[in-house]
């Protein structure tokens, strides 16, 4: 089943067209990687999917994005609710300057959960789901800023999980991490896909190959090729894809 479908999606910043008529189907409970050289529009594509581009003045889209079959850009869409259901993890770990506990509880409180027992339960579950619990269970009250980069990133994932999203968008989630931190996030992604649909944007092709089930190759705002990751990395259909993944350009 397709969780998100884009139909002839174009994105403009002012007069400049960033994405050109992208038709893409993101299958549920899979990891989809979007790869492509810098500036090809992959982060912009990701940010269309939880309407984060709305925050950029003069940005507009043409075409459609369907989320569970419903138009994400329909007039009556609750954008806050969309961003709850479609969570996001960014390139640099961006924990709040608060305790580990409060980093997760913060979003929950905003969503109206006040009961302490309930809050603690969700905090623990989110930290367990993000593979961080064993490392931080005795320091829930210390500042999140004291955690390592990799731990901070998993905390951000825990924070995203706490509000029970259906989709997790990851924008270069490992680019600021060392190999061990990267490895843990990748293992985590594989576990999380049982419950969530994950879309990852990465310039690290090896990472896309390792973790994803499907891969899309974006070039100059166009989706050149989309398919099973195995196929893309063994017998890509397009010469451009082949040239990019073999390092001939980009």
């Amino acid at each position, binding site marked *: 089943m397709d969780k998100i479908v884009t139909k002839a999606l174009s994105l403009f910043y002012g007069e400049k067209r960033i994405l050109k008529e992208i038709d893409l189907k993101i299958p549920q409970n899979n990891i989809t990687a979007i790869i492509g050289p810098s500036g090809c529009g992959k982060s912009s594509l990701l940010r269309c999917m939880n309407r984060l581009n709305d925050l950029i003045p003069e940005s507009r889209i043409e075409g459609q994005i369907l989320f569970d079959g419903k138009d994400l850009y329909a007039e009556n869409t609750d954008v806050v609710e969309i961003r709850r259901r479609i969570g996001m993890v960014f390139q640099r770990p961006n924990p709040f300057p608060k305790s580990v506990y409060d980093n997760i509880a913060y979003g929950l409180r905003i969503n109206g959960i006040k009961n302490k027992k309930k809050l603690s339960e969700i905090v623990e579950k989110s930290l367990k789901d993000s593979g961080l619990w064993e490392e931080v269970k005795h320091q829930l009250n210390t500042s999140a800023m004291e955690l390592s980069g990799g731990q901070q990133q998993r905390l951000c994932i825990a924070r995203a999980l706490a509000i029970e999203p259906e989709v997790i968008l990851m924008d270069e989630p490992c680019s600021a991490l060392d190999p061990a931190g990267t*490895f843990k996030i*990748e*293992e985590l992604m*594989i576990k999380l896909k049982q419950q969530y649909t994950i879309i990852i944007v990465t310039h690290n092709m*090896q990472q896309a*190959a*390792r*973790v994803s089930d499907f891969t899309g190759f974006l070039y100059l705002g166009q989706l050149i090729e989309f398919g099973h*990751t*195995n196929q893309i*990395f*063994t017998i890509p259909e397009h010469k451009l894809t082949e040239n990019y993944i073999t390092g001939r350009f980009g």
Partner: protein
Amino acid sequence: MVREAFRENVKELEQELLSMGEMVTRAVTRSVEALKSRDMDEAKRIISEDLLINKKRWDIEEKCINLIATQQPVATDLREIIALLNISTDLERMGDHAEGIAKIVIMLGDEPLVKPLIDIPQMAGKAFGMIKRSLEAFVKRDAKTAREICHEDDEVDRLYDQVYRELLSFMLEDPKTITRATYLMWAAHNLERIADRVTNICERIVFLVTGTMEEISVSKY
């Protein structure tokens, strides 16, 4: 995918290789049985079932290629995938040798055998054991056993020598037996080649475990 999933994939591939090994050992045994019992229907079945062995090999190869392309294995992980690729190729060729024996059954038709089959079934039994134990050694990453199995090839070579000399004497004695004796020699040759292929597998196991390529046993043929 990463580490845990990669390990699982390798385990699955190993299972597929073992089931391919079973298909091949069965084909070898059945082909010699068909030769003994002159069962042409069974021979035809063996020939058609060789396609399944070939298909299995392609499946394993495709999965290995996918793992190399997507998981970038290095060191032992890479040697494991290379071993799986090579061993599946050797097993596939063994299947072809079993098919070769089945074709001989058909070529012989109803013609009587020039001699009772004694050494050829012995060669088959020996080859059968070598294949099975080499695959066990692969699963256990047991280089010591792999080296030992290689040396058993000498016994198969010795039996082949014996069959060769005996069949040659039949041909010299009575040229009318030349065609039938040659067929049996081909059958024995197929078995000799199977044992050689087992030594390839064993050398691959040693490479997997130690990282060194060694020519362990040089076959006489």
